[in-house]
């Protein structure tokens, strides 16, 4: 098991009457791209703000780089980079000057500005005022800013929010290279599982303030059970036959579905159906998409749970 770089124990944040984050135990290992998922309003941003010292936890504690965050805040923040929600910038300053105001506070070497500008490919536009930047460029500037201090841990909160598909693609590619190329561990939040699917190695899913799943991306994908759907002439009769074979079958408009069916099961089912004079029109495999798993997991969340996931 590799080194744990960030962990929270029973992290809780209570706003006046509402509990935004409830006893969350995050575990982020070195070299992870940790996808922190949840519908809007689930507590992602609140958690992240606590990880950055912007908010104080009501309860529980945070450990970063093996030290209690509360007591070693500046030390830990020195080794972290962050981008929280919409990019922050001073629009009257150029991209370079924006980075300079942050560089001074970070005490990073001057040459670092050119390096991070090159990483996010903004070198050419670095002397233009930021108010002329497109949203994608501002977001890239934000990522450049988060890299200024040469961090070991990068915390990105919805970095692709509001970007167009090519912008999303670009940022995704950039983030994917971080662990290998620069040895950076990344914690990235999103409300879109499909987006995480393509870059995260581990995921944590938060819903209504509680962490409801944490584990490898691969394990989560494994939860996507394949179903075999048989379109048949007589659905009810077919279901009865399959049940008698000991299969977990259910019916759905014109088809019967078999859960978790092996090749052998399918072969036997078809043989039995044909034998009993039920016509089989089509056999198709249906894989539950990750989005559906995600929705299942977060079900019962607020009504407008990720509208974009379907």
């Amino acid at each position, binding site marked *: 098991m590799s080194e744990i770089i960030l962990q929270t124990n029973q992290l809780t944040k209570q706003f006046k009457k509402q509990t935004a984050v409830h006893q969350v135990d995050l575990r982020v290992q070195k070299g992870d791209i940790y996808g922190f998922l949840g519908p809007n309003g689930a507590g992602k941003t609140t958690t992240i703000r606590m990880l*950055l010292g*912007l908010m104080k936890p009501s309860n529980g504690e945070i450990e970063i780089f093996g030290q209690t965050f509360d007591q070693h805040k500046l030390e830990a923040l020195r080794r972290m980079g962050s981008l929280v929600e919409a990019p922050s910038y001073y629009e009257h300053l150029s991209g370079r000057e924006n980075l300079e105001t942050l560089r*001074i506070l970070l005490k990073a070497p001057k040459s670092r500005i050119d390096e991070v500008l090159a990483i996010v490919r903004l070198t050419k536009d670095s002397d233009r005022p930021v108010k002329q930047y497109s949203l994608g460029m501002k977001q890239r500037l934000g990522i450049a800013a988060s890299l200024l201090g040469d961090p070991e841990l990068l915390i990105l909160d919805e970095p692709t929010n509001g970007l167009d598909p090519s912008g999303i693609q670009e940022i995704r590619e950039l983030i994917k290279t971080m662990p290998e190329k620069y040895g950076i561990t990344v914690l990235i939040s999103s409300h879109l599982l499909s987006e995480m699917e393509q870059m995260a190695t581990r995921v944590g899913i938060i819903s209504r303030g509680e962490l409801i799943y944490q584990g490898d991306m691969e394990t989560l994908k494994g939860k996507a059970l394949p179903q075999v759907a048989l379109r048949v002439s007589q659905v009810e009769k077919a279901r009865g036959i399959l049940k008698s074979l000991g299969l977990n079958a259910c019916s759905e408009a014109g088809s019967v579905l078999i859960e978790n069916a092996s090749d052998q099961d399918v072969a036997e089912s078809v043989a039995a159906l044909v034998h009993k004079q039920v016509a089989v029109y089509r056999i198709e495999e249906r894989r539950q998409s990750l989005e559906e798993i995600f929705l299942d997991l977060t079900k019962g969340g607020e009504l407008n749970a990720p509208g974009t996931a379907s």
Partner: protein
Amino acid sequence: MLQALQAETLKLKRKWFWFLVFLGPFGVIALQVVNYGVRYDWIMRTYPDQWGRLISFTNLFVSPALLLGMAILASQLATLEHKQGSWKQILALPVRRRDVFVAKFLVIAGMISVSSFLLFIGTILLGAGLGFGWDAPVLAIAENSFYPMLAGLPILALQVWLSIIKQNQSGPLSIGIFGAVFSMYSYEVPNWVIWKWPLLFPDKDPFPYVAMGILVGVLVLVLGVIDFQRRDIA
């Protein structure tokens, strides 16, 4: 701390801050130009102490201009961060909240000092221009130019505090503008009202106001820092 100050001054680029710094003293002097222009003969006939009269005329307008300047500068400097949600970016850096807060206060205090210096020079030039000669009572003019600022430090600390914690600047600005207007009519109010202090009562000893200003200014600043440290940054 030094870094925080440096970062603050960098952000002032291409903004109108320095124009405001100039506008304050310019306005105060310009009003005296009008004052003397309209009734030069009468003033010269009525008040034999030329410089003394110029100083007390000027003094009338220093306090409101100063308080307005403090409120506007504090609000503008805080707005820089509020506007694009920069607080979350700066405060997630390895920097103390105390340093960020105090740096803002110091930058504005520095600007107000520049304004005060311009007022000092402006008063002397105006006097010379009005034919009072160059033997100006430098010390008295310096007192009139710099003491109000020192006596007004509690208000500066308060405006910085309010502007930083309030996303919406209408509250802090209203308080600042009201305070500036109120200060002109505050002769009768009790001595503990801080908006009265920058007026300095030309006839009385200004020193207690200056001393209290510095003392209470530091106190309000400390309270502001403590409050800011405990806040959740949304």
